[in-house]
């Protein structure tokens, strides 16, 4: 205790001075906290603004419908956004069913034993493995051993592995937060585990699972490093085969085996070029990428907010 809180005349502790000092300390900390907060918000704001200023004027219909080019002013992201769309479809088709299934297993089925413990530690650890390591795994396994080539399928599989932990954790949390009453209602009817899960628990947990899926997909959209290691080509001036066709059976999965590029790769490629014109094109790509990820995250935040409101 410092001397200033001891009354110099009486030698007693001056309580009023103590309270004043303490309040000042609280206020000081609150201000520091607020300043940190403002700095963080300002950074996010500056980042968004920087992209807007650099990139928005460059966005046009042609930018979306042109292939990349050696001339910066003609370069476009047609192959990149088509590639991103297709890779994301492949990722979603793999990661959502597997991730939800694994989450259901761990939350509803898993017995308490060492195997379950191992799986749980694994999922937690995988969530913290750097994305580039997934790229090396895919390079060693899918490209070099399985010889699947540098295709959309490989990119989709790689990103699916990467976001699997996110979807697993979200599924588990969604299932865990289902009220006990709903659970008992399902089992009280005589449902077996799978009937209860499929008919009632998954629908009840859907918003929470959806949040996880959206956050995972937004992460996958922006991922660059693992796609680089598996060797995505950066100059792609053609489109993969269309997934829909006008003859039977109307869907076509040849696109899975096609070479591709995606938006973050295209953006990275343009950043690495010396010409300023390409940097502008990179910023424009960044604007589109940022809007997509921010929109998706915003949507996830909104759904989560709705869940909390309705559960109150």
């Amino acid at each position, binding site marked *: 205790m410092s001397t200033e809180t001891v009354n110099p005349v009486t030698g007693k502790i001056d309580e009023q001075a103590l309270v004043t000092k303490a309040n000042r300390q609280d206020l000081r900390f609150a201000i520091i906290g607020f300043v940190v907060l403002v700095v963080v918000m300002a950074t996010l704001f500056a980042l968004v603004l920087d992209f807007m200023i650099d990139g928005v004027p460059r966005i046009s219909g042609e930018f979306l419908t042109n292939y990349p080019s050696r001339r910066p002013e003609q370069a476009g992201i047609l192959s990149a956004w088509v590639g991103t769309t297709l890779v994301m479809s492949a990722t979603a088709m793999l990661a959502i069913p597997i991730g939800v299934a694994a989450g259901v297993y761990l939350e509803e089925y898993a017995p308490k034993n060492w195997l379950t413990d191992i799986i749980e530690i*694994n999922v937690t650890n995988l969530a913290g493995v750097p994305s580039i390591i997934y790229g*090396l795994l895919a390079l060693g396994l899918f490209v070099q051993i399985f010889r699947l080539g540098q295709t959309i399928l490989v990119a989709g599989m790689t990103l699916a592995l990467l976001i699997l932990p996110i979807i697993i954790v979200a599924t588990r949390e969604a299932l865990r937060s289902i009220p006990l009453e709903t659970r008992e209602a399902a089992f009280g009817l005589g449902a077996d585990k799978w009937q209860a899960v499929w008919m009632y628990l998954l629908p009840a947990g859907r918003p929470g699972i959806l949040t996880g899926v959206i956050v995972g997909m937004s992460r996958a959209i922006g991922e660059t490093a693992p796609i680089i290691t598996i060797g995505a080509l950066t100059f792609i001036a053609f489109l993969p085969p269309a997934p829909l066709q006008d003859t039977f059976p109307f869907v076509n999965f040849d696109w899975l085996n096609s070479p591709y590029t995606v938006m973050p790769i295209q953006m990275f490629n343009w950043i690495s070029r010396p010409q300023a014109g390409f940097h502008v094109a990179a910023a424009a790509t960044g604007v589109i990428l940022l809007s997509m990820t*921010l929109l998706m995250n915003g949507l996830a935040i909104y759904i989560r907010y709705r869940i909390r409101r309705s559960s109150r």
Partner: protein
Amino acid sequence: MTTAELSGVSERRANYGRLVASEAFLRRRAITGNVIGVLLFLAAALSVLITAGIVFVLLQESILFFRQVSILDFLTDTEWTPVFENPRFGIITLVSGTLMTTLIGLAVAVPAGTILSIYLSEFARHRTREIIKPILELLAGVPTVAFGYFALFFLTPIFQTFIPNLSGFNLLVPGIVIGIMILPYIVSVAEDAMRAVPDSLREGAFALGFTRYQTAVRVVIPGAFSGVTAAYLLGMSRAVGETMVVAIAAGQQAKIALNPLEGAATITAYIVQISLGDLPHNSLAYLTIFVAGLTLFLMTLVFNLIAFWLRKKYREIY
């Protein structure tokens, strides 16, 4: 009294007959249930296979590498020149670059993250929290390649105006940006740990006349110590593995990084650099990316496991 009398329940119903599940259906249901149980287990077991796959790929290629290069050289050499005529493989160079950016990142994220978590958990009102947490989530959702652009084309020029000898490629700015990037993770884990400290402890402190700040520093943080430490470790693990920001803004020169104002390659940036090149897949230089990857994986694994253990510990306490 006979069974017939006791159980003299007629199946006549007031309204309609009973619907029972047929034997065949119950059998089918049991089989379906078992099959699905197995499928769900396989999905969960895939996570173990992924880890096994990572270890297998990294080890297999690294063993090939260490057949040609001694581990001692690998750990002690001070130069990294795999594509030169006379290649040298001193991993210290790349590790030093990684550690430099990580330390700069932590220097930003640890104080800021701790202050923000205390602010969120002990000071902010409910409404403030409802606004701040989404903003942090949005920050966490920004693609890393966008942060790279931001570091190279926005922050570096600004920093150069007041640090004249700052190179275009440097470790300082990417380090700071990494700090901003890992901030949301640190805050989320640390705040979680602080909120797990029971209110009874806080009330005890307030009853002694502690202020909010004193309660936070003397009761909440010690109480949440293992969780807060786990938050730092998880942040560190992310900082070590962060790739695009350093690949874009830190340069590609592999050397022992002592000066943050100059550029240097990190482990991740090196992997990107080689991946973009056209080295033959069976060359010694190409194997180095797996060795570098193994080094990275081991570093993050250690941080992650300690963090996992610490978080489990605080969950057990409260």
